[in-house]
C-alpha cells in the first residue's frame, strides 16, 4: 500500500493510502465524518485533493481500495477493466484526466469509448477535484441511451418515473395518482410503485394491474414494482407480466449482502427478465437504486468514503446493462448528507460518475424532514441536473410521497424543467401525449389540450 506526502509551502501532509487520500479529498459531508474518514480541516482536504490530482491513473489498477480477495465488486471492477478503452488516458494523472475531460478532445463519442476503460475509483477520484460546473459540463457531453418499450437518454429529453405510491396499496388510490401523473405528462421512464406490502400475492396483483393499464391505454412505458429481485424472479416464474426487474444495490460485497443479494442473484434476475422478451425496442430491463451512505449504514464500507462506495455501485449496475439507475440522493438522512448543499453536490457527483462509467443515470431529487433542506434546494438540484442532461427524475403528486414519507420532485416540477430547459419526454411518449391530446411541446412551451382525452373521460365517468 502506497503512502502519499504532499507539501504546500512549509506544511507537510501525509496520507496512509490511496483510500485515505480519496476520503480526505472528498468535499465535506456528514457521512464521512460519521465514518471517521474525513479530512480534519479544510486545509487538509485541499492538500488531499492536490495529492490526488498528482496520482497516475495506472496506480488505481494496482492499489485496490477494498482487497480483491475480500470483495466480489472489486473483482468485477478489475476483471472487466478494458485496457484498450483505457489507453487514450492511461498516461494521465487524476488532475490530467480532469483537464482532458474538460477539453475538446472529450466529446460524446470519445467519452462513450472511454467508459469501459475507467474504474469507479478513477471516476470518483476525478469528481473530487471538480467543481459543480465541471461536473455539469462533462456530464452534459455524455449520452447513455437505453431502450425497452421507450427510449431513454436522448439529447434534449428528460424522462420521469411516475411514482403512484399509496400507504396501503389501494388499487383505486394508485390508479388516481397514475391518472394525475399521466394528465400532467409524466410517466415515460416507468410507472414504478414502491409497494407497502411485500407479500408475493400483492406484488403480483400490482404487476397485473400496471400491465393492464399500460395495455388498455396503449402507453409506451414500462412497469415496475420495486420489490426484492428474488420476489421478481418468483413473480416471473408464476407467469406474471413483469417489465423491469428492480433491486437496490451498493458498492461493496458486504453491503450487497445486507440487501440480500450478490452478483449471481442479480444475474439470475436479469436472465429471468430477459426470458420474457417484453421489450419492443430493446432489452435494457434492470432498474437499480443506489445512494451515498448505504455501505456505511450497513457497516460495510471498509473505511472507504461514501461517494467512492457509491460510484462502485455503478460498476455493479453497468454489468447488467440497466434500463435506468436512480441515485436516491437525499432519502438516507442528514447523518450522511446534512443539508441542501451536501445533497446538491452529491446528486451532481453521482450523475457525473455514473454517466462517465456509461450508466443511464437518473436522480431521485429528494429530502427528508430532518435534513436541512427544502423545496428551494430541490429546485436548484433539478435545474442543475436538467442542464447536466439527466436521463430521468421522479414524478409524484405534489412532491409528497405519502407511503415513504419523504419529498421528491412533483409532476409540476418536471413541467417546470421542460419549459425552462426545453426538454421533451422520450420520443415514443411524446407522440402518445400528442395523440391522446394531453399536451404538445414546441420551443419548450408546453401546450395542454383543451379537453380531457376521451378514454380517460370515460374512466372518470365511472366514478360519478
Amino acid at each position, binding site marked *: 500500500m502506497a503512502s502519499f506526502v504532499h507539501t504546500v509551502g512549509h506544511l507537510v501532509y501525509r496520507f496512509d493510502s490511496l483510500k485515505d487520500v480519496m476520503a480526505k479529498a472528498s468535499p465535506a459531508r456528514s457521512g464521512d465524518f460519521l465514518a471517521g474518514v474525513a479530512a480534519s480541516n479544510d486545509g487538509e482536504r485541499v492538500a488531499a485533493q492536490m495529492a490526488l490530482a498528482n496520482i497516475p491513473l495506472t496506480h488505481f489498477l494496482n492499489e485496490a481500495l477494498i482487497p480483491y480477495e475480500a470483495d466480489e465488486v472489486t473483482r468485477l471492477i478489475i476483471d472487466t477493466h478494458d485496457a484498450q478503452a483505457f489507453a487514450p488516458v492511461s498516461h494521465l494523472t487524476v488532475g490530467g484526466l480532469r483537464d482532458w475531460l474538460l477539453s475538446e478532445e472529450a466529446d460524446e463519442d470519445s467519452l462513450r469509448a472511454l467508459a469501459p476503460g475507467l474504474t469507479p475509483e478513477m471516476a470518483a477520484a476525478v469528481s473530487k477535484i471538480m467543481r459543480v460546473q465541471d461536473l455539469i459540463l462533462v456530464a452534459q457531453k455524455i449520452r447513455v441511451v437505453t431502450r425497452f418499450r421507450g427510449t431513454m437518454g436522448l439529447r434534449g429529453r428528460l424522462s420521469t418515473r411516475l411514482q403512484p405510491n399509496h400507504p396501503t396499496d*389501494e388499487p383505486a388510490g394508485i*390508479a388516481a395518482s397514475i391518472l394525475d401523473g399521466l394528465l400532467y405528462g409524466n410517466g415515460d421512464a416507468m410507472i414504478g410503485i414502491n409497494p407497502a406490502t411485500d407479500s408475493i400475492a400483492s406484488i403480483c396483483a400490482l404487476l397485473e394491474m400496471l400491465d393492464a393499464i399500460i395495455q388498455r391505454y396503449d402507453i409506451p412505458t414500462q412497469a415496475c414494482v420495486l420489490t426484492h429481485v428474488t420476489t421478481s424472479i418468483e413473480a416471473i416464474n408464476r407467469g406474471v407480466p413483469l417489465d423491469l426487474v428492480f433491486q437496490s444495490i451498493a458498492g461493496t460485497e458486504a453491503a450487497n449482502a445486507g440487501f440480500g443479494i450478490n452478483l449471481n442473484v442479480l444475474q439470475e434476475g436479469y436472465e429471468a427478465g430477459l426470458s420474457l422478451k417484453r421489450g419492443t425496442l430493446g432489452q435494457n430491463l434492470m432498474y437499480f437504486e443506489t445512494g451515498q451512505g448505504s455501505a456505511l449504514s450497513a457497516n460495510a464500507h471498509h473505511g472507504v468514503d461514501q461517494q467512492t462506495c457509491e460510484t462502485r455501485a455503478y460498476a455493479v449496475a453497468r454489468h447488467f446493462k440497466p434500463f435506468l439507475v436512480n441515485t436516491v440522493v437525499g432519502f438516507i438522512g442528514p447523518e450522511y448528507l446534512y443539508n441542501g448543499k451536501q445533497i446538491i453536490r452529491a446528486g451532481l457527483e453521482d450523475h457525473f460518475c455514473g454517466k462517465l462509467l456509461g450508466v443511464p443515470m437518473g436522480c431521485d431529487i429528494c429530502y427528508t424532514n430532518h435534513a436541512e433542506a427544502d423545496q428551494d434546494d430541490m429546485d436548484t438540484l433539478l435545474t442543475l441536473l436538467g442542464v447536466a442532461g439527466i436521463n430521468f427524475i421522479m414524478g409524484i403528486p405534489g412532491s409528497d410521497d405519502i407511503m415513504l414519507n419523504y419529498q421528491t420532485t412533483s409532476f409540476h416540477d418536471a*413541467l417546470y424543467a421542460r419549459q425552462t430547459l426545453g426538454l421533451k419526454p422520450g420520443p415514443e411518449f411524446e407522440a402518445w401525449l400528442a395523440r391522446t391530446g394531453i399536451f404538445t411541446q414546441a420551443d419548450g412551451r408546453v401546450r395542454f389540450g383543451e379537453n380531457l382525452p376521451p378514454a380517460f373521460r370515460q374512466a*372518470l365517468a365511472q366514478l360519478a
Partner: protein
Amino acid sequence: MDHRTATPDNPWLALRTLTPARIALGRAGTSLPTGAQLDFQFAHAQARDAVHLPFDHAGLTAQLTERGRDSLVVHSAASDRDQYLQRPDLGRRLNEDSIAALRQHAEANPGGVDLAIVVADGLSALAVHRHTLPFLTRFEEQAAADGWTSAPVVLVEQGRVAVADEVGELLGARMTVMLIGERPGLSSPDSLGLYFTYAPRVGLTDAYRNCISNVRLEGLSYGMAAHRLLYLMREACRRQLSGVNLKDEAEVHSLDSDTPASQKGNFLLGKE
C-alpha cells in the same frame, strides 16, 4: 377558470376521494397554484418545527408526578440537535452524568425490575408531548393484571431508539419499552413509535427489537397500540426473546382476512 386565482379548474378533482396523495392540484401555467404551493410549505414547516421543538421533560415530569409516577431525566451523548442529527451513534448512548445517575438509582434499588419505560424525543418531541400520558394510561390499565414491577419512567433528551438498551441494562430491567418521536412526515408531525426489547443490553441491533409504528390520532389508536405491545410482551416473557423471531409469530397470529387490496378493481380498468 376560478376568477379569483386565475387557475384552471381541475376536471379530475373527483379522484381526491380515492387517495390522500396531493393529486388534482390544478396548475398556474404549468406550475403549482398559489394555494397548493402554500399548503405544502405549511406542512413542511410543521414537520420542521416538530424536529426542532425542544423536549419539555419538565412538563412531562410534572404530568407523571400528578399520576403518581416517578421519573428520571437523563441526556444522551449528543450535546445538541445539530450533533444529534449528524451523529446517530451519540444519540444511542448516555452521557457520563446520566450513566452515573442511573447507576446510583440501581444501587439504591437493588434487584432489578421487570419493566423500564423510556421516553425519548427522537425526531419529534411533539409526538411524545402529545401521546406519552394518554398512551401510558391505556397501557397501564391493560397491563395491571400482569403485575410487573417498574422502574421510574426515564426521560432521555436527544435520544435514539437504542439508548433504551443502555438504560435497561443499567437499571437491571428484564424488558424495556421505548416511546419515541418518529421522523415527521409531511402530514404526520406527531407520530409516536414504540420499541420493545427483552433482555436489553448495550450493542443489540434492531433485529432484537419489535416496533409498533404510527401511534397518533389519525393513525394507530392508543388502545390498539397497547394491545399489540402487551401481546408482544407476554409472548416475550414466555419465550424469553424479542425481535425478529418473536415478530414473525406475532404476525401470523394477527393475519386476518388478508386479501391483497390490489385484487379489487379500479376505475382505470373498469368493470370487466
